[in-house]
């Protein structure tokens, strides 16, 4: 196992925000379901005014097909729920807004690559654990841009920021900021492939037998790909920046990528050493049982740069290539295409307006409500608990009471987006 890999496994990107494709899909499902449930509750408890109720259509069995407004329901059913977005719908919208975010970052602000990408990844991550029905994407998009800047060390004046978007008040952004941070599980470091690309090109340049122009072209194309494709797809969740970079390089110039891999994974185990490493090396004879904890250097090397690992890496890069090729930079136009938006996006947006969370849609109100509640419940939290004579258990104000406890247990058992206890 290489030290570089071990170091990568320490990053929050790996620990908290890397999933297998099936896991990711499951998480999105869970988020979606949870949102539907909770929004349903809220809508049922606070039925919307009758005029809006008429526009709400009863849920159909296959909620995938966008249901045109029908006036079929003459009697506004107070128990009727709107048609909710499916996970697929959500993903579609998220992708759209991601593209918008990138566009704004480039056209309005001209941010450097790492800021744009960080902001976009923040946005995507946020909507893995939160539903787009719960929190408004247009606002969160701006929040993600703002917060992405900060996370990358560029601290902007919020008023200046909102002005560029043509908005007047900055409260929304500030209100959403903490929410975003929380939704990101407080991990703010996103690892990108851009510098890795530079490193790869420098390494290739040192081989001396590659044409400089070829390198430059490849770098340029690869960089273009990296600015768009991994962000629009789920590549960041399933592959490491190194692999993403290799995939992009491969798409730009397959030969170069293969050359680099060959050069890195060139170790051939000498015949006498049995490979007791975790992956059997086909070049070595039948592996002997791993005897001592201290493995022979040959085995270590096989595990790190041997041919078996090389094949596995090549496989991963191929898979990543496939993912990236679905959203090559040429697709930018697709996402901004007017007719596409009209047919695909607008209906979803309309659907969204009906099924959104009434309590949370307005970020400013939400934050205010939360703050007030905190003050009301427990006074200023800066005082010592002892001063206020609270028991040990009430850390931050009184507990919300029984229903919360009950809920906590139930949530843990059944509906758990993160898969139970760690």
């Amino acid at each position, binding site marked *: 196992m290489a030290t570089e890999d071990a170091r990568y496994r320490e990053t929050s990107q790996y620990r908290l925000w890397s999933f297998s494709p099936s896991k990711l899909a499951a998480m999105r499902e869970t988020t979606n*379901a949870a949102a539907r449930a909770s929004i349903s509750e809220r809508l049922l408890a606070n039925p919307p005014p009758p005029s809006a109720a008429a526009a709400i259509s009863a849920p159909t069995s296959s909620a995938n097909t966008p249901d045109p407004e029908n006036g079929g329901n003459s009697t506004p059913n107070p128990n009727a729920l709107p048609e909710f977005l499916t996970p697929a719908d959500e993903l579609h919208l998220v992708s759209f807004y991601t593209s918008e975010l990138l566009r704004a970052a480039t056209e309005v602000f001209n941010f450097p690559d790492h800021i744009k990408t960080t902001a976009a990844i923040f946005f995507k991550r946020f909507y893995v654990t939160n539903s787009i029905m719960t929190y408004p994407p247009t606002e969160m998009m701006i929040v993600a841009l703002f917060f992405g800047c*900060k996370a990358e060390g560029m601290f902007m004046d919020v008023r200046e920021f909102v002005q560029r978007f043509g908005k007047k008040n900055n409260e929304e952004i500030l209100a959403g900021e903490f929410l975003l941070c929380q939704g990101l599980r407080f991990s703010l470091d996103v690892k990108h492939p851009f510098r890795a690309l530079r490193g790869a090109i420098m390494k290739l340049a040192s081989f001396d037998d590659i044409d400089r122009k070829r390198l430059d072209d490849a770098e340029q194309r690869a960089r273009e790909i990296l600015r768009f494709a991994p962000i629009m797809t789920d590549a960041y969740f399933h592959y490491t920046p190194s692999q993403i970079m290799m995939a992009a390089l491969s798409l730009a110039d397959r030969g170069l990528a293969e050359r680099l891999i060959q050069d890195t994974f060139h170790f051939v185990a000498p015949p006498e050493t049995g490979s007791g490493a975790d992956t059997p090396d086909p070049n070595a004879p039948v592996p002997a049982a791993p005897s001592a904890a201290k493995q022979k250097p040959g085995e270590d090397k096989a595990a790190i740069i041997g041919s078996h690992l090389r094949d596995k890496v090549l496989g991963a890069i191929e898979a990543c290539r496939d993912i990236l090729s679905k959203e090559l930079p040429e697709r930018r136009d697709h996402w901004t295409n007017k007719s596409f938006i009209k047919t695909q996006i607008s209906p979803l947006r309309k659907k969204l307006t009906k099924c959104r969370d009434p309590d949370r849609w307005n970020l400013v109100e939400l934050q205010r409500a939360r703050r007030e509640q905190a003050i009301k419940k427990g006074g200023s939290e800066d005082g010592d608990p002892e001063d206020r004579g609270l028991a040990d258990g009430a850390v931050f104000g009184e507990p919300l009471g029984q229903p919360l406890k009950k809920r906590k247990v*139930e949530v843990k058992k*059944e509906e758990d987006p993160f898969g*139970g*206890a760690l």
Partner: protein
Amino acid sequence: MALSPLVMPSSADPSRTASPLKRQTSTVPSSSNGTPAFTASRVTIQSGQPPTLDPIEQMNEDEKRKYVKGKKLGEGTYANVYLGHSRSDPNVLVAIKKIKVQQQYNDGMAPDAIRELKYLQELRHPNIISLLSVFSSKDQNLNLVLEYLPLGDLEMLIRDVDRVRYGTADIKAWMGMLARAVWWCHDNFVLHRDIKPNNLLIAADGEVKLADFGLARGFADPGYRMTANVITRWYRPPELLFGARHYGGAVDIWSVGMVFAELIIRSPYLPGNTEVEQIALISKQIGTPTEDVWPGVTSLPQYTVPSEVTPVWGKEAYMQRFGAVGPEGVDFLIKTLALNPKKRITARGMLEHRWWHTDPKPTRKEDLPRKAGSDGEEKMGADLKRRNGVIEEENRGGKVARKLDFGQAR
């Protein structure tokens, strides 16, 4: 560990590399009709009632409940620090740092908070303070749960000249820890930018830990300008005093050198009251930065030096003042205080220096001097360690008067 926003397992734990999602016990049916998948009851909504909790908010709540907040340890403009302990194991003490909403900073979350959060999450090393968890409080404030370091900081030890004594071996041990911390930061491409004895906290077992990453940032790519207004003045290197906007790890190394000097003479080496004075002190006590020792220095934006040019101090001069750490130690010090940042030793270079292998051997961390006097915190920590009902028996014999020896012939 339950649903925690952060996964921070201890070091030799094989499960650290397993996914937090590995054991997904629940499988939510992916039915696409509108029926909700569960029937958790909630607080019924009435108008004016607070919004209920999402799964991720619930996770946050769970995380928060893992820790019991105790008394306030300190209050600053930036944050309040509370002592706390793990609810499941009261012996595990933590410091809960609650970041205050800044009055002056109107642009949302403060930069310090963001930087601390970002870098403490990624850097894990025995000589860097550990971030155990993060959660948000009800009033939307950030709470960082850090490991509790009860024995104060290095500044306390240095300043308490009357009651705390330490020697060369102790200095070497502390410098080793500091050097390791800085090396790890740099190896992960992070500049700390605020190294000073005040930010070197001491753990219960004597280990020194680098804290306060509020000014940290990642190494910049070429062409990116950084602010020169970082690092506390007394520990700031000349390139920053001259306003350089492109710099590297050498700025931290200079601070390390200043801490080293302070450890030896037990008072700040160059305590300037203004930037200009700081430059003057550097000029006098280390050497005037001129073109021959530092090509290009005169072109830095705020380059200004006193008119009297002092040649760079040689080793003999340093030996006079700092000779207590031996010639190898002085060599180490000189290399960290090279005026030209390009010539300054690197973090790795520090750890590869000969000084670590000369006598005396660095003191073991358990044997390092501690701050004098029994502080409430210390005592409390000690108290918590002791088992109930057991009186410590170890040193009773010391109180018994020694038996006079009459066996000697006169």
